[in-house]
């Protein structure tokens, strides 16, 4: 039972991170399309934000691992 609840937790964490990273990707692609000359800065900001979003998801996954 603990394992299945942990799996649910991982799923929820991944949904959150997926939405977050999807938004980042969509918006940065839009921004690069609008201002291709700023693509370097946009890419840097994109990776930084994606890493932060991912960090939140990873904490969820690790907690789920520990519960299992």
């Amino acid at each position, binding site marked *: 039972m*603990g394992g299945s609840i942990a799996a649910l937790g991982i799923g929820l964490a991944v949904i959150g991170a997926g939405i977050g990273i999807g938004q980042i990707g969509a918006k940065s692609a839009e921004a690069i399309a609008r201002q291709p000359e700023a693509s370097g800065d946009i890419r*840097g900001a994109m*990776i*930084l934000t994606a*890493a932060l979003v*991912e*960090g*939140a998801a*990873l*904490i969820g*996954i*690790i907690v789920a*691992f*520990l519960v299992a």
Partner: protein
Amino acid sequence: MIFNPLFRKGKLNIPTKPSKKRNRSYKIRGERATFALIFREGLINKLSQRVLKKNVRMRSILLIFSYIILTATVAVAHDHDGHEHDHATEQHEGHDHENGDHDHHHGGHDHGDHMACGHPTHHEFDAGATAFHHIADANVYSIGPWSFPLPCILYAPDGNGLQTFMSSKFGDRDTHGTGNKAYKGYVLDQGTVVRVKDNNFPQEQVDIAGIVHLQEKDAKGKEKNVPHVCYNDQLYKCDKKSTADAGLFGGGITSYYDLSITKNVLSMFIVCFLLGWLFLSVAKSYRNRRGQAPKGVQSLIESIVVFVRDECAKPFLGHKYMKFLPYLLAIFFFILGLNLWGQIPFLGGSNVTGNLGVTMVLAIIAFIVTNLNGNKHYWEHVFWMPGVPAWVKTIITPVEIAGLFIKPLTLMLRLFANITAGHMVIIIFVSLIFILGDVGNNAGVAWGTSIGSVLLTLFMMAIELLVAFIQAFVFTLLTASYIGAATEEAHH
């Protein structure tokens, strides 16, 4: 291009009196015009030929690579199967010799399992367990079918003190890396040294019948997989692995300390040696070629160093970046080197940056560097945030103090989870062959699956290559941003 003075003043060597249409095209679409010139001269044909040639070469390399993986996967599968059967027969014979009354246990097990103290030592194929076993640290370094013993440095405060010996003392290892001998009260369980808890267990080198994994409930009521050694038809319980992994991979607080030169430690030594050699040679070429353009590997290293300086150090650290650049470059190249080292197929597949202990040390160093360099304003913002009402401060201060520790914690977890997840996914894709092929009982399906699984593995490896760079970059970037936040001067 419109504002390019060269174009306005007609300094470029373009036709002085072109037609109105062409003139416009030169002025507004300068780049396109240059491209058109190249095209007219037929250069584009040569270019496209070169690109085509490159493509063909790339494709053939990819094909050869996938063929190697395919054959190796199949070879490993056969090897696995064959070895298990060999061992099964060996053990059966051995048992028959020693005690005939154990025979009845052997009947009815035809899955290549062999019995130790009435328990099968090999269970059904479990993809998750296989993945965890393969990404874990080990006291042997295995390259394909060969495995090399590594030095073990073990310290047991209550037992026989400090012991140093090679892991070859554990006798012959099976395909899982389990040794068939115990030495000084330690056994080799799936490549990792564990201590036998029982004091009655002999301290000298003795033959063991096998290691059995039993499901047991610990104090908190969680199911744990506890290894038991079968010696003289008696089960002796083993201690946990001595690894700092928060219990994720079966580690925990143990009665002994494992300070061995494990697979991961050896990989770190090798990568440090390679990086040292690379950087010393680059430094030498900088000395010898002072004032000249970089050459060879120097160009590669210089571009990466400039990348880290311009993307990580300068934006966050401003004019103080030179003070922290050596540290940032050190962690960047260390993480990148280890990520890439773990990516090389058939070279041990060490998972160093996917080890919580390693990432924890990296995060602790980042924590120390950040907080030792924190200035007055940084600590003021942590403990007594200026410009907010007092009741808000009571909420913000605990959050900020927690944030001090959460930042390195996320650094640690991000690197660990990304690299571990990548390695696990690759192993699971390979495991698909065994799951769908019913562990060799259905060879046709196994062959069919192996094609798909090789393609998926190749795809994952390409992504992992990207991740190796991104995670090294992100770790450096975030460390730089934390240091930058701690050293920022007041501007309010």
